[in-house]
């Protein structure tokens, strides 16, 4: 057990921080949020060159074979500059599922170009009625006479779905709408006939898409993993995405909090720095305490994201996501409040962090969802029977 960063991890943190400082500050985000793509191919390519896009992938696909904690550190640092590139959809969601479930041919085809920053990926799982239930899937894939699949249905808020070269799509191959068995994953080219992509711009300025599948024809080789058994893998991938969201959220919260404390030391009213007022000092102290709690939970979730024991992973990810949502909210609402009127202007950066955080809080399960899941784990009642 060791909670200090290794020498390699410190180097990663330093290089990402330098990248954010030199090439990926808030000014860049202000440019990308009004562009069609919402992020920049040059920056994506640069991240590929640095090796960040392959941080958790195996070496034989051009990756580095690092731990999830390494990836969390990268996401945390990138968040300081509101970096908009689609790391979570490409690396954690689609990339993670392809590497976990794919055959060698699928992996060799899809992973190296993404890791080099030449392509990006997405995972289409959420539907308008599904909320956070991964087994609630109306989109259907039916077997065709040629042994392929035909897909019909709709997926909403597909992160990076507007740009992804390949979309991993969850579709029901058997069973009723909410059956745990019978959901399968398919590899779908983004430009395939019969797929209509409606670009969406989120409240945070990030891009997603609404996908409509109308008789999309896929060959049998498009199936990813075992037919009908996708839900446990989806749970694994969404958990890792939730842990990734906590890491990104940590960077956002750190940056918001730092800027707020700086503001308290600068702004004068009643002839004094407002940071000298005890009411505001105590608010800042409480924000600091919640921030530390967020960090503890985030680290634990990142460590356990690699665990092969599902309950262990779920417990820590849910605890971290709850803290990001509850504790994080306390920090972000007060970051705006302590900035006063300027905090509510679009010109002040702090509001941009606020909005991205609010999106991360809803993605991959909100507080109620994770509390609900935590209380249902077998470990919640373990040890009670024995007294």
């Amino acid at each position: 057990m060791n909670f200090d960063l290794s020498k390699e991890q410190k180097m990663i943190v330093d290089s990402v921080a330098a990248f954010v400082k030199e090439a990926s500050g808030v000014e860049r985000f202000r440019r990308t949020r009004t562009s069609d793509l919402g992020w920049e191919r040059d920056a994506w390519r640069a991240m590929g060159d640095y090796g960040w896009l392959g941080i958790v992938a195996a070496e034989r696909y051009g990756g580095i074979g690092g731990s999830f904690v390494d990836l969390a550190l990268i996401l945390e640092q990138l968040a300081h500059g509101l970096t908009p590139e689609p790391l979570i959809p490409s690396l954690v969601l689609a990339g993670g599922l392809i590497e976990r479930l794919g055959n060698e041919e699928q992996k060799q085809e899809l992973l190296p170009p993404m890791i080099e920053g030449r392509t990006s990926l997405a995972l289409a799982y959420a539907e308008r009625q599904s909320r956070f239930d991964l087994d609630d899937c109306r989109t259907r894939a039916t077997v065709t006479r040629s042994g392929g699949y035909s897909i019909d249905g709709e997926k909403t808020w597909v992160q990076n779905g507007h740009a992804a070269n390949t979309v991993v799509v969850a579709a029901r191959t058997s069973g009723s709408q909410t059956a745990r068995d019978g959901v399968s994953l398919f590899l779908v080219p983004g430009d395939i006939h019969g797929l209509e992509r409606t670009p969406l711009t989120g409240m945070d300025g990030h891009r997603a898409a609404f996908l409509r599948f109308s008789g999309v024809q896929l060959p049998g080789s498009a199936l990813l993993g075992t037919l009908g058994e996708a839900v446990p893998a989806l749970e694994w991938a969404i958990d890792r995405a939730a842990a990734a969201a906590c890491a990104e959220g940590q960077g956002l919260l750190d940056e918001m909090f730092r800027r707020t404390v700086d503001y308290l030391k600068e702004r004068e009213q009643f002839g004094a720095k407002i940071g000298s007022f005890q009411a505001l000092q105590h608010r800042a102290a409480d924000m600091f305490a919640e921030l530390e709690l967020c960090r503890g939970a985030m680290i634990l979730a990142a460590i356990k994201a690699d665990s092969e024991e599902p309950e262990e992973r779920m417990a820590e990810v849910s605890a971290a996501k709850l803290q990001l949502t509850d504790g994080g909210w306390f920090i972000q609402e007060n970051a705006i409040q302590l900035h006063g009127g300027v905090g509510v202007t679009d010109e002040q950066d702090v509001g941009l962090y606020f909005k991205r955080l609010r999106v991360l809080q809803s993605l991959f399960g909100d507080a109620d969802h994770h509390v609900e899941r935590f209380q249902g784990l077998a470990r919640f009642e373990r040890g009670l029977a024995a007294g």
Partner: protein
Amino acid sequence: MEMTFTAEDRAFAEDVRSFIESTMPPHIKAKADIGGSFNHAETMEWHRLVYQRGWAAPDWPVEYGGAGWNVTQRYLYSEEQVRANAPGLSPFGLGMVGPLIIQFGTDDQKARYLPPILAGDEVWCQGYSEPNAGSDLASLQLRADKDGDDYILNGQKTWTSAAQYADWIFLLCRTESRGKKQHGITFLLVDLKNTPGITIKPFLTLGGTPAFSDTFFDDARVPQANRVGPEGGGWTIAKALLGHERTGIGGVGRSGAWLRRLKRIASESPRGESTLLRDPTMRRRIARLEMRHRALTMMNYRALSAAQLGRAPGPESSTLKLLGSELQQQITELAMDALGHDAQGWLETPEGTLEPHQRNIASEFCYLRAATIYGGSNEIQRNIIAKNILALPGT
């Protein structure tokens, strides 16, 4: 950064577990199993058993009796103690004055005081607060006048925890009333049992137990040799000690035990055809506290890990105290809710009407209102965070 355990680590944890199982006397185990609280005699009995195994103060330097464990072993040790609901050893000697004597004491003081602290032969208490010196501790007035090789003490301490059981008290007194108030404070070790002129009057708290005392000094004579650090240097020592104290009173381990106790109460309370633990609202309320506790546990171990690297508990211990004390209160507040009508129960409620392990819950709930006050009130902790961590301007 990783949290994996080697085969050696697991063997160590197994060793600790089997020690606890094989050593804990039946009457203590019976209480531990129902999550009860332990009285002074039981705590000291357990202290001596742990001491015989060499684990009374694992964090002390090895030369003074520490176990020489790494962070992982310390983590595993405390996990096993908490899992078994073992009595928590009194912190005043092992966790507070002991480390301080190691840091600031003379060789003679180390030789005199450390072995009996370790063995549990001498019990300590803390004399900081006075009737007019609470949050503003530096305004303390217990006078210490020099007379030959001695100091003569006159005045009063209050909120002295467990003074009625203690052999010794470490205290802050005033040796100089001119100049800056922090500069006239001196740190003394006082023999409570053999010093004429000391009167201890325990008083009841809201919890209905005599957890604290007023301690009066009336021409009590204390050798100057019992001074730790220089005359007038007590404030520096006091601040170092408050760091140790705050880390401990985050109560992270105790909160873990309380959470299990809370679930046990809920699982024993009928609710319709089922139990309160099956009640969706209650389950979610418990889950929220448990999830927050996990984050706090991680914070605690990161602090431990930092301490292992030789960094003394600094202002970050204020954060642990702040969050930990509030969580302790929230858990006992929920335990009261879980009891329903039985929340009215009190220490002497007869058997047959209230389970034995439920009798002290209202008492603990009341007593723990002190958690956000003692060890420096949470408002003082917020001041410390604002000033020492965030460097916000003074008024």
